[in-house]
């Protein structure tokens, strides 16, 4: 249904464009004056008046139709005295019968009646949907065509409309962010209604299993997030220990030593690293790195578990090398050539110039690159799920299993869980804390990068 209506709208805007173009030419010929804007702008004007009202109708139908029909069906349903109905199940049953997904035989007469009612309502809705789209497009075109006079500044109006469209597009992202933040906050509040915020932030026991049914003999759950954040921190530190030196030294090589030819080949190659799906890194970590770490641990007398913070952190470090090297390379490159010349002109060699002039000048930008890489590492999930395990251990030993915030969110949300269970809700609280942390890291990073930019422009 909605596909054919899109075709209808496409035909509508196409013909409105043609109509607008020929109409303005005709009108200006009739009046013997030249139109203020090019004919295409008048055509676009008609097109917009045809398209946007139709789109509004289209989307409001798509959003509200099902809900309204269901409400009507339910309110007209012939309830049998004494029977208990679950509204959701009842609706599903009616819909299935109406869509011929399940056989009508054996269903009660009320359901069959309701299904028939449902189908007929849908038919009515469909017909009125097409009619209203056609009418609204015609009305729009009619309104617009009255303005098609040569003295009308179509271009100005179009530019204003385009500005509205751009504002709308950019506000979509903003409102989505706000919506996500609010849903995080509200769900977290539900979580904190059941679990004290102090327990969550300061207790060291994470055991999110609580009895689902009355009388189930499960231990009392406890929600102390400290081991999770400690695990996140540990993996992040390992990752940065790998990525910071490698990334920075790569950047120095690329920016200061490599010839143009090498640079042109190596930089895109490095950026490919950033394009590898993280799950691929994950099984690389699990299959190749983790056994190696275990063997290494045993050889130096440490009992390493088969999945470890070290394995996950190292691979994650490799993953974020391109973030650091690419950003730092840009920063180092934007240190003015005049500083290099000044230092070399005094007789400093290349290493001295880099150490004493270029890196200090580029430091704020490099710190910014590090912070962005850290927030990327904190948010990373798949590598840790696969390579570090899911056990919430409070440990500083990188050879042990740990778990991170994102992993616990995954764990909390898989499986059949009702959304009124603290275990599921804990995902939102964890997400909220994670969001706050990465938000602050990003703000700090952006501030540093900004200050750095001001200095040299």
């Amino acid at each position: 249904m909605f596909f054919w209506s899109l075709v209808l709208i496409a035909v509508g805007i196409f013909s409105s464009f043609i109509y607008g173009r020929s109409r303005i030419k005709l009108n200006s010929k009739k009046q013997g004056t030249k139109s203020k804007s090019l004919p295409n702008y008048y055509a676009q004007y008609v097109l917009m008046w045809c398209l946007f009202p139709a789109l509004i109708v289209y989307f409001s139908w798509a959003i509200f139709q099902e809900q309204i029909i269901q409400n009507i069906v339910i309110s007209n349903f012939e309830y049998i005295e004494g029977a208990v109905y679950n509204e959701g199940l009842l609706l599903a049953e009616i819909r299935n019968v109406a869509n011929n997904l399940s056989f009508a035989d054996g269903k009660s007469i009320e359901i069959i009646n309701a299904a028939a009612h449902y189908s007929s309502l849908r038919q009515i809705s469909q017909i009125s949907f097409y009619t209203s789209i056609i009418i609204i497009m015609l009305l729009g075109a009619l309104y617009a065509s009255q303005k098609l006079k040569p003295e009308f500044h179509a271009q100005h109006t179009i530019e204003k409309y385009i500005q509205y469209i751009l504002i709308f597009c950019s506000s979509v992202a903003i409102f989505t962010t706000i919506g996500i933040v609010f849903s995080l906050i509200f769900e977290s509040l539900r979580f904190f209604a059941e679990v004290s915020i102090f327990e969550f932030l300061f207790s060291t026991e994470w055991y999110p299993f609580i009895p689902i049914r009355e009388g189930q003999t499960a231990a009392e759950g406890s929600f102390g997030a400290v081991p999770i954040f400690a695990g996140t921190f540990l993996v992040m530190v390992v990752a940065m220990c790998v990525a910071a030196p490698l990334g920075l030294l790569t950047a120095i090589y690329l920016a200061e030593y490599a010839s143009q030819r090498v640079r042109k080949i190596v930089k895109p190659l490095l950026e490919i690293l950033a394009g590898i799906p993280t799950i691929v890194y994950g099984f690389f970590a699990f299959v190749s790195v983790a056994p190696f770490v275990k063997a290494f641990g045993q050889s130096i007398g440490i009992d390493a578990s088969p999945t470890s913070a070290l394995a996950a952190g190292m691979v994650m470090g490799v993953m974020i090398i391109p973030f650091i090297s690419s950003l730092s390379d840009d920063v180092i490159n934007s240190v003015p050539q005049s500083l290099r010349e000044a230092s070399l002109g005094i007789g400093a060699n290349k290493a001295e110039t880099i150490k004493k002039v270029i890196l200090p000048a580029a430091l704020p930008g490099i710190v910014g690159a590090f912070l962005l890489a850290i927030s990327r590492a904190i948010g990373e999930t798949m590598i840790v799920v696969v390579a570090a395990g899911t056990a919430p251990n409070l440990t500083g030993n990188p050879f042990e299993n740990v778990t991170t915030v994102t992993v616990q969110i995954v764990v909390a949300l898989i499986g059949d869980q009702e959304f009124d269970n603290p275990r599921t809700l804990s995902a939102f609280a964890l997400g909220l804390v994670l969001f706050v942390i990465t938000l602050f890291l990003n703000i700090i990073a952006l501030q540093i990068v900004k200050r750095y930019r001001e200095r040299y422009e």
Partner: protein
Amino acid sequence: MSNSKILANGVDVYYGSKQALFGISMDIKEKEVTALIGPSGCGKSTFLRCINRMNDLIEICKVSGSIKVDNEEIISEKTDVVSLRSKIGMVFQKPNPFPKSIFDNVAYGPTIHGLVDSKNELEEIVHSSLKKAGLFDEVKDRLNEPGTSLSGGQQQRLCIARAIAVNPEIILMDEPCSALDPIATAIIEELIDELRLNYTIIIVTHSMQQAARVSQKTCFFHLGELIETGETNKIFTNPDNTKTQDYITGRFG
């Protein structure tokens, strides 16, 4: 060749396949100011940058021919570029102090070359260099402030102090006043006149008045060739070549 400091012979410079300098030969005397003049793109800065091998920084730049500094060939694979550059200071078109304190800017050269053993000695060198550059009295109370906080003219004198702190014998100046106002320019010109007593100075300039005021020798470049070289007085009053005549009288360039 009694007191010839720099002796260039048949210097060709190529940027990729484009030739920028054609067989430049020049004899620069000790403790004199030599001005290189000529229209934009004539190769005077390129020549200046051959003397301290700054052209090495440009990947596609190829230099051939011979330049001798104190009778030592410097256009050679074997040249120790680092010690050459510590002997030849350079001041650039745009003041380019490091984003460090005034003190650290001047102390940079002596420190990396290990010229000093103690903090006192370093302080002495910094102070005396700033004095020689005529900047000390203006900044003595704020040596810890960033060099970039100074005015343009002060920054340029800071760069001169930084250059002379490593005790060079030659100072190359690449249009040192083009980014400065007339007052700052006058101060720098006076400074050049004083520095001449101790250093050999080569200055590239677009201002013919400046060349006439500060230099003893003038070399006129045009389209990558050295057209005429001689006493500044003679070049500006009675040049041999008609191109020089046309340029200094403002008929082209």
